[in-house]
């Protein structure tokens, strides 16, 4: 079946007009579908290929809030984050997101928000990134500004982006510094104020809701 699909796709490339809405054999080339509010995505760190992840494990230092790490495996639903606008925004499900917009990321399983503040991260002493609040509890520490690398205007899957924390100015960052005891094998995620290659992430797997108004 895969072969027939591949042949069909090849045929499409040869310029024959066909109905869309069928299965595509592999993810689209460089950049994929647009990301809209309400979509549930995994964020992959470009440098290490680990995914932004959280779980009901508190930090043993700093704020003691729920920890956020880089996770090596691809099959864990604790790596899913819901893309949300700022509270009381007119934006709704299905709206695309422009570079420079302030967004929030809600952890799918625990309903807490990707959060940062002036606490030290446990391994490298940078800014601590935690998971805090809930469906009805959110503050400005949950605000992250989307910065698209390159010339793109709206956020797309597989596109290189940075997330800059509004309150502290720190970029969402990860590196090859791993936890040894609890969360063994997972690596540290923190906020770093300088722009560096290790601040680059991209939206990978997920459930991407269509742009509203299109069906």
């Amino acid at each position: 079946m895969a072969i027939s699909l591949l042949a069909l796709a090849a045929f499409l490339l040869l310029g024959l007009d066909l109905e869309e809405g069928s299965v595509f054999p592999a993810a689209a080339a460089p950049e994929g579908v647009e990301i809209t509010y309400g979509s549930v995505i995994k964020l992959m760190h470009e440098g290490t290929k680990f995914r932004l992840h959280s779980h009901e494990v508190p930090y043993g230092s700093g704020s003691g809030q729920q920890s956020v790490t880089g996770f090596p495996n691809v099959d864990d639903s604790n790596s899913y984050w819901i893309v949300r606008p700022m509270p009381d925004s007119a934006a709704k499900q299905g709206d695309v997101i422009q570079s420079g917009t302030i967004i929030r990321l809600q952890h799918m399983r625990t309903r807490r928000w990707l959060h940062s503040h002036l606490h030290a991260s446990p391994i490298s002493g940078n800014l601590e990134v935690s998971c805090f609040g809930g469906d009805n509890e959110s503050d400005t520490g949950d605000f992250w500004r989307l910065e698209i690398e390159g010339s793109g205007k709206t956020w797309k899957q597989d596109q290189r982006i940075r997330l800059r924390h509004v309150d502290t100015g720190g970029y969402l960052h990860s590196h090859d510094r791993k936890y040894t005891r609890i969360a063994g094998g997972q690596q540290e995620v923190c906020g770093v104020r300088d722009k560096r290659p290790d601040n680059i992430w991209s939206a990978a797997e997920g459930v991407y809701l269509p742009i509203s108004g299109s069906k």
Partner: protein
Amino acid sequence: MALPRTRLLLLVFLVSHVFAAFGGKNYYDVLQVSKGASEEQIKRAYRKLALKYHPDKNPGNEEANKRFTEINNAYEVLSDREKRSIYDRYGEEGVKQHASSGGRGGGMNIQDIFNNLFGGGMAEEEEEAIPKGDDVVVELDATLEDLYMGGSLKVWREKNVIKPAPGKRRCNCRNEVYHRQIGPGMFQQMTEQVCEQCPNVKFEREGYFITVDIEKGMQDGQELLFYEDGEPKVDGEAGDLKFRIRTAPHEHFRREGNDLHTTVTISLVQALVGFEKTIKHLDEHLVELGTKGITKPKAVRKFKGEGMPSHLSTRKGDLYVTYEVLFPKSLTEDQKTKIKAILS
């Protein structure tokens, strides 16, 4: 490339192949085994899937019942050496022709196959718990229009799938107990982890569209289930993808259960002498709101059957319209005199 007509024929062939693969569904995909799977592997896959989708375990679930039929059809062919080799070479069509031209006597029917493998009836749970991957839950805001008329959304699902990789890996590990003799008549019980060797696997990203159908009258909190579209699980089955429906806020109408609420504003004159007014409903049909009589401020009128459809029956809820009356800000002395004369 070749002549346009040959091209067209090739296209038709490919498309029908794709459709055959989809519409009739490839039997190997239905049983989730590779083309070269052994008979034992096919039997085990059938057991696992038939148990999961059996109608007794999924009462009223149309999707599960449909799959159960597909699984049985697939097994009927793939479990029979002759039918399987015909299917491998000529597809479903080949098998159908072989059967109609009096292939092998009648073949077994679904009940027989099932009973043969499970010894009649499904009394209790099967032993091994099959490990299941993580579920993914997505909250979906549905517009009032979609919930009134029905609608669908095309969602792009990108996830990892398990693909074969070169080499071997350990799998189906379990702790085995054995006895070792440490002296005459003396034995010691030991446990040892024993694994089998399986073909190696790896994860690969794949994306595809899923059509999410919003049915008329769905309630908040209702879930739409997509079997095994969640997270993958090696040596197990993938988790599910669920969409949880939520009614999106609407500019004019407010939903409460199966009823709709809205507010309209009329002038004082209209309130006193009557008026004609229509509003556009969610499917653009007009509802007559007028009256010949007097309308009190904040009066509520019920319009039966103009609410939301009920999910599973043909009944409909009601529309409640609240009339707000606009009073003039001030009146001239002359107006006051005239009004007093009319209304006393």
